[in-house]
């Protein structure tokens, strides 16, 4: 992809707040348009990613920004909602169908378990509708099939919380220790509470613009969305809420990553900084191999080497990831783009990845959705 400029980004911090989703979405959208030095009337299309709010959610948000007459479309794909909105917007711009698309992601998730992840009623009523169970099955499999240990799972959380100390938009900004993670309550073996992200609240926005339009407006066109891979369930994929899985199952993230790398004309070795779907600690480790940063079975080695910590070869979740920011489902994917753009602009302060020119974002959601995005400068 050559013509999709990220003209601006905006964020409402992730956490727990006394305001509604409309206000949070408005804050992110307004900050994004200010960042892009673009008037709301110059946006051709608004895509709003959200899972749990009311009908016409995007209309209710942008209705607080300006009544421009531009169409608003709501996008939902569970935890991959933000990535899906971004993918749709980028495709419309690359094709020439739109000049500017504002993607807004927002969520005000209730506390506790995420309900209604697509389970059949028999799964819910018999107690199988437990999201962390499905992550734990993957975590356990990773431990059985590689030298990954429970300590490694704890260390992913330790790493990401260490990164979040320097992110003012994160929910949890305190360093934690391996023992604190291991001593936290067991949710589904081997996952402890502090190895899982918290569904929470927040918003993020990204303004996409065609390169020609950005130049015509004399806007900064140096940060571009150059690669995109969006996939849903194939014949042999498995994720929440699947009741069974094939022993030789395939991986959605691998397919999405392959598409994104091809579109960008790069490989994993060209990536400088990563924001990936660390719904739980094991999901981050699995992403290391599925995104091509190591071979299958070498995930823990990559973590232990320090490569995925800021200062390492391929820093992952430098924002603190979902483990530290929390996961406002509709906003999380666009929050990743906010972080990558901040990094590529060299505006990330103490959590800056030196010389970052290529970033990769990855989300994965219930119902079998994965989106990988490459952002380059």
């Amino acid at each position, binding site marked *: 992809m050559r013509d999709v400029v990220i003209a601006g980004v905006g964020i409402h911090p992730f956490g727990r707040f006394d305001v509604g989703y409309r206000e949070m979405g408005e804050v992110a959208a307004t900050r994004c348009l200010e960042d892009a030095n673009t008037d709301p009337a110059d946006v051709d299309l608004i895509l709003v990613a959200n899972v749990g709010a009311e009908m016409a959610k995007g209309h209710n948000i942008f209705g607080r920004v300006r009544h421009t007459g531009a169409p608003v479309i709501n996008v939902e794909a569970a935890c991959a909602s933000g990535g899906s909105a971004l993918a749709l917007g980028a495709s419309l711009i690359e094709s020439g169908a739109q000049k500017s698309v504002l993607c807004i992601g927002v969520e005000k998730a209730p506390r506790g378990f995420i309900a209604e992840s697509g389970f059949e009623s028999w799964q819910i*009523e*018999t*107690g199988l509708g437990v999201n962390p*169970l499905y992550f734990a099955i993957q975590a356990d*499999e990773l431990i059985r099939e590689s030298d990954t240990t429970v300590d490694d799972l704890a260390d992913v959380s330790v790493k990401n919380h260490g990164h979040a100390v320097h992110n003012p938009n994160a929910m949890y900004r305190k360093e934690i220790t391996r023992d604190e993670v291991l001593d936290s309550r067991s949710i589904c073996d081997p996952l402890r509470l502090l190895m899982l992200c918290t569904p929470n609240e927040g918003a993020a926005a990204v303004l996409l613009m065609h390169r020609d339009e950005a130049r015509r407006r004399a806007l900064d066109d140096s940060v571009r969305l150059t690669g995109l891979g969006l996939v849903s369930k194939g014949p042999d994929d498995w994720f929440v809420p*699947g*009741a*069974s899985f*094939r*022993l030789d199952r395939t991986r959605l993230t691998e397919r999405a990553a392959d598409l994104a790398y091809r579109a960008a004309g790069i490989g994993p070795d060209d990536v400088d900084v990563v924001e990936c779907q660390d719904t739980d600690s094991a999901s981050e480790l699995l992403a290391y191999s599925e995104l091509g940063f190591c071979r299958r079975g070498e995930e823990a080695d990559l973590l232990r080497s320090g490569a995925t910590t800021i200062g390492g070869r391929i820093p992952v979740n430098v924002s603190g990831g979902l483990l530290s920011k929390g996961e406002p489902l509709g906003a999380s994917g666009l929050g990743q783009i906010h972080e990558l753009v901040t990094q590529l602009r060299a505006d990330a302060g103490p959590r800056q990845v030196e010389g970052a020119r290529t970033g990769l974002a990855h989300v994965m959601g219930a119902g079998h959705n994965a989106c990988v995005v490459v952002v380059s400068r």
Partner: protein
Amino acid sequence: MTMSRPSTAVGSTDGSGLWVQAPPGTATALLASRCLVCRRTAFPACSPCLACAGPTVEAKLVGPARLDYLTDITVAPPGALIEPPYRVGVARFDDFGLAVIGLVSGAAARNSTVEPFVYEYRPGSMTFGFREIAEAERMTR
């Protein structure tokens, strides 16, 4: 044969398309489907095959299977009718290339050999579960 996808199995005693009817506490078979074209086994059953649209036939998943994964659930998820604590595991049916997630009876251990059985998870409500085959043999004696 063709089978419809079950909408619910809760409170039923006939398996509602998920398992073969049997009294609570006895062994059963999970009702899967096998595609005549791509040979994939699917659970719950589907017709036609959701992978290749080929015709399917019934396949019954019976033990022995291996309990690959096991965990205790201590907090009930939204909408659950089962009372925690309860146990959930993954039973691996190597002959079918398939692993199934389900409730596990109290005595089963990880890596044990298990079979599907009719699990009365609250009075009058059945679902399928997995139990150690040794446990079933003890019950038979």
